[in-house]
């Protein structure tokens, strides 16, 4: 099996996996970074959202062989901040967004990427940016409030 070097959360990780292995399963099965979740495997639910150079991407639909370039830096929920102090994480706790919590790492990663490129999103910008992330528990109104609060706190 080929060996790959991945830049994740500021460190370099070596993995031995098939070239077509989705980054999601490399994170979960090989690096024990299980904060990134599996929900659909086909880019529809957003549970697996991580950052590639600050942009939100669906790690279930991205083969590991596509991210081995040294310029490609990945960030997962575990690396978003030390101790959960990213403004989005703080807002999530302040608004008490979570119910079951399973979708929330993906929601937070999508929100953080949105604020990275648009620090002053309108309500509509927020809804549009967050629409790729499903929440079966229905926490959408809280998610939107938390994103707006985080934007103020940036």
């Amino acid at each position, binding site marked *: 099996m080929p060996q790959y070097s991945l830049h994740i959360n500021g460190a370099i990780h070596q993995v031995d996996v098939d070239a077509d292995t989705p980054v999601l399963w490399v994170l979960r099965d090989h690096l024990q970074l299980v904060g990134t*979740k599996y929900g659909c495997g086909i880019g529809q639910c957003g549970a697996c959202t991580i950052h590639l150079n600050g942009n939100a991407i669906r790690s279930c639909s991205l083969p590991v062989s596509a991210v081995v370039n040294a310029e490609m830096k990945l960030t997962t929920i575990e690396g978003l901040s030390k101790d959960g102090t990213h403004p989005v994480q703080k807002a999530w706790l302040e608004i008490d967004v979570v119910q079951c919590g399973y979708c929330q790492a993906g929601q937070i990663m999508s929100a953080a990427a949105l604020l990275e490129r648009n620090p002053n999103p309108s309500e509509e910008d927020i809804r549009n940016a967050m629409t790729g992330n499903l929440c079966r528990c229905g926490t959408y109104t809280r998610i939107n409030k938390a994103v707006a609060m985080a934007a103020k706190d940036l």
Partner: protein
Amino acid sequence: MTHIKTHFNRRSFLKVSAVGGAGLMLQFSWLSGLAHSSSNAEAVEGLFNINAFIRMNEDGTVTIMSPNPEIGQNVKTSMPLIVAEELDVDWDQVQVEQAPLDTEKYTRQLAGGSQSIRQGWDSLRMAGATARYLMLASAAKLWSMSPDELVTDKGMVKHLPSGKSIAYQDLLQEAATIEVPEEVPLKDPKDFKLIGTFVKNVDGKGIVTGKPLFGLDYMEKGTAIAMIVHPPAFGMQLDGYNADKAKNMPGIKKIFTVNTALDKPQWSDVNAFNELLVVVGDSTWQVMKAKEVLEVRWKTLGTLEATTAHLDSFSSVFDKSEGELGRKDGDPDGVFASADKVVESGYTGAFLAHNTMEPMNFFADVSADKARLIGPIQTPEQLRQSAASLLNMPESKIFVDMTRMGGGFGRRLYGNFGLEAAAISKAYGGPIKLIYTREDDMTQGTYRPSYHIKYRAALDKKGNLTAFEVKGSGIPSSPLFPDRFPAGTVEHYKATHYGIDTNISTGAWRAPRSNFVAGAEQSFLDEVAEAAGKDPIDFRLQLFDRAIKNPVGEGNDYDPERYAGVLKLVRDKSNWGNKMPNVYRGVAAYYSHNSYVAQVFDLEKVDDANIRIKKVWCAVDCGIVVNKEGAINQVEGGIIDGIGHCMYSQLTFEKGATQQQNFDGYHLIRNNEAPLEIAVFFVDNGIAPTGLGEPSLPPVAGALANALYKATGTRYYRQPYMVVPQQPKFVG
């Protein structure tokens, strides 16, 4: 002051133990002596059927075990909160731990029916109150005073006149010498400091930082990944397979079949496919790829059902048989025959998948003489029983532990995946982690049944309801609750059940049966009110008035005053009757799982083709609200979930197979389809609390349909409403 029976009066329930490095710890385990002693059996009945566990640590922290499974309904926060209230400690002092399945210590370790809080209320209060009493009595003994002279506050016992005070942790030694009385005082609800406040989810921090809390995250060293291949359609069975190609794929360890059929399945063993093909390998992706190259032959054993045929059977079901009478008051047939006006409508709802965001999964490590089963399960006790019979092993050799769950909604009441994991581990000969793909999860479910209900209402000249008839059918069974509203409000009433056979596996789905009946009934009442020329809220209030003053029949399963109460509250809060430009309103109220909910939906036309939900007003009577934050979150979630499922979601069948396999085909509500705003109001009546995981969902389908009617002039009879032709598009 209210007192509560403690159900114990022996010192042996208390234990002071030295804990490694941390000093002393006082353990209370209440009711533990009761679980098996017949003399106290009576006391365990009724509301006192949950046990709990507190540990008071010498560093001043208090560890409160949360015995019930956490599926997102937030009992892991709200149940310990009740203990902490009566114990009178600061919430910051409390640490919450999930208890494993332990039927010796706890009873009803089950998440379902929104019952955790309702059934736990008294015993959780008693637990906290007992511990508090011991603190008071210990300080009294130390200071040679009477406990009556002392008060508690934030983990301290105080003597106000002298200003003396002592922390709970300094009383632990003393407390172990105090006899537990037969009765302890409870706080007056008006003195509650924690209950009724806004308390954040205890697992919030772990969740937002990506900690491994969920079943899918649970792994042990040396665990192999397992996946199943199940028949592609209901009515099919495994016939044979060729694994030559698959077994030589990298990382694949073993390919074999298992059978999870039980001699005596219990209610939680609903499962369409017992015989499964299994692939075990090193990693998830390798196993997924091997699954794809397996060559499997299937044979057809039963009917391969289709949605078109289901709809056909609905159209004739009420003519084919007499049905089963659920309730009859007066002479409905006679009244209908001579009625001034008769309103009649039929409502249909699709099968629904649970689609918890975390697909089914379970860890199992089964050896010759013991088994460990760990994962997300709403019914750990039932899983252990069934695993014992499947593995032919005594229950005492089986350890079951619950992880946090990425949603339940009823799916994880049915533990087939846990049994499958056990069977796989046994056959494989080592620890495995069974993971369903989303496709496995959606195509092998215990679905919400498909339903069809027909209503008839008779009105007299003045627009009074004189007779009401409902016929309910479902695949496989009727969803009706014959004793619920409007039973009791109308002189002549009849409810009849009809069933239609199926080989599709179905089960409880968030607010079972209510999740469909409420929308149908409340849409129909809107039509009846219109035909009667009455405001829909006034019309309902008149019916409740009748049930309050002079109820019809026996055994009506609701309190008409509380029902009317939520309607009045939502009417007042939403300024019902106030005409606003471009706002189209609908109302509904429903009682389920012991709580009352009324809602007003405000829709707004964005343009000719698009409508959006501007605001949802929701009034709730669940008695005392334990944790406002969690309660509002549950209510909001139920509303959004309800909108999604009545508007967009459906599972349809063709040749026995679901036509939706993943979220590209199955439409779950998305962020931009959710309402812009939800306002939640609680009735403040001091009644013992009831659950909130389900009750806000059912009325949504009614209030939304009624608002849609105002906006579009169309009545919506078939869920999901989106399937109706010319349905305007919903936007955010």
